[in-house]
């Protein structure tokens, strides 16, 4: 989900938490401190890149998707759509076409 939030452009940590809350309508209201270890882990994995920026005299670390991160977002979006379609079909009593 953090990768998806960053797919529209770079954000700093506070911006990521606010955007996640906004997009989910408040459903995903995480303890904000959990964002930073997750962002650092994604950066270590090569899915994000980051740099320092100064905005209104204050330093902030801004994160953006790497090329690998963009591919990962697409892969996960596809997987999620397939999963969601399958669950919807089960609840609707329908049978999805295989493949």
């Amino acid at each position, binding site marked *: 989900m953090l990768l998806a939030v960053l797919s529209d452009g770079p954000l*700093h*940590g*506070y911006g990521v*938490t606010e955007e996640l809350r906004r997009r989910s309508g408040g459903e995903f209201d995480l*303890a*904000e*401190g*959990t964002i*930073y*270890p997750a962002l*650092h*882990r994604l950066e*270590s994995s090569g899915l994000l890149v980051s740099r320092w920026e100064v905005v209104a005299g*204050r*330093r*902030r*670390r801004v994160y953006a998707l790497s090329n690998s991160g963009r591919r990962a977002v697409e892969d996960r979006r596809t997987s999620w759509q397939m999963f969601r379609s399958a669950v919807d079909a089960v609840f609707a009593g329908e049978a999805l076409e295989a493949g």
Partner: protein
Amino acid sequence: MSTPDPIDAYLRELRRQLRAPRGPRRRILAEVRTHLLEATEAEQRGNNEQPGAAERALARFGRASDTARQFNRLARHRRRVLRRALLPWAAAVMLLMTSLATATVWASHPGTTMRSHTHMPEHHLQSRHCTKHPAIVAHKCPAR
């Protein structure tokens, strides 16, 4: 905005609990500080500057111990990954150094035949006790 006291206290506690090298620790503390300041300002805007904005921002952020634990877990994972990545290289370097040391001994003792790759120090080869080290096929025992 100067850092409110509750945020200072939080950052001190987080710094105390973080197990990370200086550089990464400073980065973590700087990011958390910026976040808490922005969250405090947002609380002030949303609550008509009622007191307790910093405390509310801290409550939303979570306990310093929880944040530190997650970072420390990440640091341990990174160290494990690094050790696993470096182990083959360390083994290769040790093998190379052992081979070089063996070649050096051969070069400095042309009359000595050694089958082992283990390096025998000179004083052992010249020992009056002439122990037949299993690694040494033949060597001249000095007369007693």
